């Protein structure tokens, strides 16, 4: 956990005061909405269908228990008692009042939470692997570099008015849980042949209207050059990204139009012209940040504690353990994923009561630390295995132990037309119906790992392009219809899904998904051939036939 020092806190507080003044000037009429809109976006404040929406940053998805409690407090005091965790490791509150926002921000600032640059045409939350720092086989904790980038990009005077939003993601594991290939800049932390830390840098990934998988611009940028290289990319983008058409303004379009070689050459030219050493990330710089990351004082624990052996006879506990508990790099500990996808529930939501209770559990069982994943689930990263049975009982009471992580009912969905003013169709009720259709856990386990992603419009906040099954809401003659794609992936083998056929109406989506799953079960070579691999092997045709045979 990174500990903010006085300087970090001062900056956050100064930001709160600036926004307080801006809100005052807006409400008095001194600032028009046109002038204010960009300012509020830079503090994460959107206008949605029913109300303002407030998006709070959770840098690289890491929270302390006091911070989680404070989020619960904001949900209760300023909102309707719940929050929504997003696909970029942030949290959203949906009913916030503009007049009360400065106070909400002030309350959050007290525990080092802010909402800077969670919206607007600037650099957004640097997301990472929710298992950072605890995953076995990780090269180094990517959050150290995420924090470095967070500071570098916060209120950067040159890059606060980019052509469009800009998103970073970092992974330090062979298996990419941060989806770096669909970010504007994706960074893969690894060591070169000399054992030095550096990054494969990818650019131009992104979803939305024109999805692209990111391309490698440089296979190895030494750690000390990370900031200067990123500055070169941002400067080229700031100057040459399109400003005439918001649908063509992301860096992915610039990379596509120039071609990766030419784009890389432009960046290199800029980079070589940078002679100053102010941006060099030397050992002292990294040590300064690393020194303020605190790691737990892990005990020396056995691989198989008694408590776990005893609990193994309980089939419900075992099912949950098999599904939601993952190997930790330290013996005797585990990473526990908490599903926020209960049957019939809105995916990714948590109530203030759940947050408070979870903060207590984090204190008791996870050294006071909680993680947020981009699949809209939470995690407790440092749980002693001997505590798993007790933890499970507590989580189960809170509704945070649905054993469906990575299964068909672990659905990623955007807020959709129930909340969002950009949406064409609803997504949450589709997700809820699907969790009901696949509520039987035996069935879900039988199906195996299957990621369903739902977006209510082409902006793709649900990441439908990279879903194993992707569902995109569209509008046809005032009615909600949905396009279905299959075969997408968000990991190191990232791929875009393929459309299976014409859009289907709202009432039929769950049936179609059931048909697709049935087709998969019939066609898979072996029980452990994943859905997405069956699609790769056989293509879309057999699924298309099954779904559209009677439609």
């Amino acid at each position, binding site marked *: 956990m990174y500990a903010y020092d006085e300087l970090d806190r001062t900056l956050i507080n100064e930001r709160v005061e600036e926004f307080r003044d801006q809100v005052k000037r807006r409400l008095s009429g001194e600032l028009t909405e046109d002038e204010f809109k960009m300012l509020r976006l830079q503090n994460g404040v959107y206008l949605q269908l029913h109300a303002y929406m407030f998006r709070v940053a959770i840098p690289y998805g890491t929270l302390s228990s006091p911070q989680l409690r404070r989020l619960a407090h904001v949900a209760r005091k300023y909102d309707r008692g719940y929050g929504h965790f997003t696909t970029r490791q942030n949290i959203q509150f949906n009913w916030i009042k503009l007049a009360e926002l400065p106070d909400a921000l002030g309350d959050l600032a007290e525990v080092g939470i802010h909402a800077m640059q969670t919206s607007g045409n600037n650099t957004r939350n640097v997301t990472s692997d929710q298992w950072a720092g605890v995953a076995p086989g990780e090269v180094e904790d990517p959050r150290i570099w995420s924090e470095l980038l967070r500071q570098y990009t916060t209120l950067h005077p040159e890059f606060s008015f980019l052509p469009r939003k800009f998103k970073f993601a970092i992974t330090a594991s062979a298996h990419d849980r941060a989806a770096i290939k669909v970010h504007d800049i994706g960074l893969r932390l690894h060591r070169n042949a000399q054992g030095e830390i550096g990054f494969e840098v990818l650019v131009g990934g992104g979803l939305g209207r024109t999805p692209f998988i990111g391309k490698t611009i440089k296979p190895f940028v030494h750690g000390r050059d990370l900031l200067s290289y990123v500055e070169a990319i941002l400067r080229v983008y700031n*100057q040459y990204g399109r*400003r005439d058409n918001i649908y063509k303004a992301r860096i992915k379009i610039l990379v596509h139009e120039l071609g990766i070689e030419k784009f890389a050459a432009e960046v290199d030219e800029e980079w070589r012209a*940078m002679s100053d050493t102010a941006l060099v990330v030397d050992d002292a710089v990294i040590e300064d940040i690393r020194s303020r990351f605190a790691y737990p004082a892990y005990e020396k624990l056995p691989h198989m504690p008694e408590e776990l052996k005893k609990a193994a006879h309980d089939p419900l506990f075992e099912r949950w353990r098999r599904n939601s508990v993952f190997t930790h790099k330290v013996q005797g500990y585990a990473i526990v994923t908490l599903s926020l996808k209960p049957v019939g529930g809105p995916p990714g939501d948590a109530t203030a009561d759940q947050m408070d209770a979870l903060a207590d559990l984090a204190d008791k069982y996870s050294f006071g630390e909680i993680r947020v994943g981009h699949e809209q689930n939470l995690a407790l990263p440092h749980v002693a295995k001997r505590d798993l049975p007790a933890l499970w009982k507590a989580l189960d009471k809170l509704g945070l132990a649905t054993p469906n992580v990575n299964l068909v009912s672990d659905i990623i969905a955007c807020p959709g037309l129930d909340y969002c003013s950009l949406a064409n169709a609803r997504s949450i009720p589709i997700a809820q119906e699907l969790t009901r259709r696949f509520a039987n856990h035996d069935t879900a386990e039988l199906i195996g790992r299957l990621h369903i992603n739902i977006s209510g419009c082409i902006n793709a906040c649900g990441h439908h392009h990279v879903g194993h099954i992707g569902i995109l809401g569209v509008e046809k003659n005032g009615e909600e219809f949905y396009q279905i794609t299959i075969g997408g992936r968000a990991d190191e083998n990232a791929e875009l899904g393929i459309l299976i056929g014409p859009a289907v109406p709202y009432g039929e989506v769950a049936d179609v998904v059931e048909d697709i799953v049935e087709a998969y079960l019939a066609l898979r070579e072996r029980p452990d051939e994943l859905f997405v691999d069956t699609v790769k092997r056989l293509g879309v045709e057999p699924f298309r036939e099954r779904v559209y045979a009677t439609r």
Partner: protein
Amino acid sequence: MPLVKNGKIAADIFVHLADAAELPQGGSVLISAARFLENPEGVLAKTAKLGVIWPNNRDLDDLLPYLDRLAAVALVFPSFRDGRAYSQARLLRERHSYAGELRATGQVLRDQFLFMLRAGFDALEVKKESDAEAFALTARRYSVFYQPTGDGRITALHRRMQQRHSESAR
């Protein structure tokens, strides 16, 4: 439109000259890049202080040879959302060591003042009177800055290093 120069509302010694208007002998004028490049030597010879207004969608290359003879360079924010001039400003100040007046024109609003100062602007043609009056207050809004730019404001990182040094020196 008030001019804020070096932190204070100031009288503007420059006149914006339209392309068609005649160049006053010995005047202090701001002219368009197009006009300047038509006859740079001629214009420089005729004026006492010359400023060039450089568009934000054009590389600085053609301007660079004349930097040390210009009294001012004006960059443009056609909309406050268009941030290209910030890059131009930093390049002029930090890469090309431009030391003359660097002026922000166009939609220059209070909430961008500090970004502009950090990018190297020292003169702002402020759109609203009330914003100009609030300049001093606005410029003091932040005391912590994460990233180094050419404005000389010490970064958080350096302050931490300094703190560490002074702590270990005790």
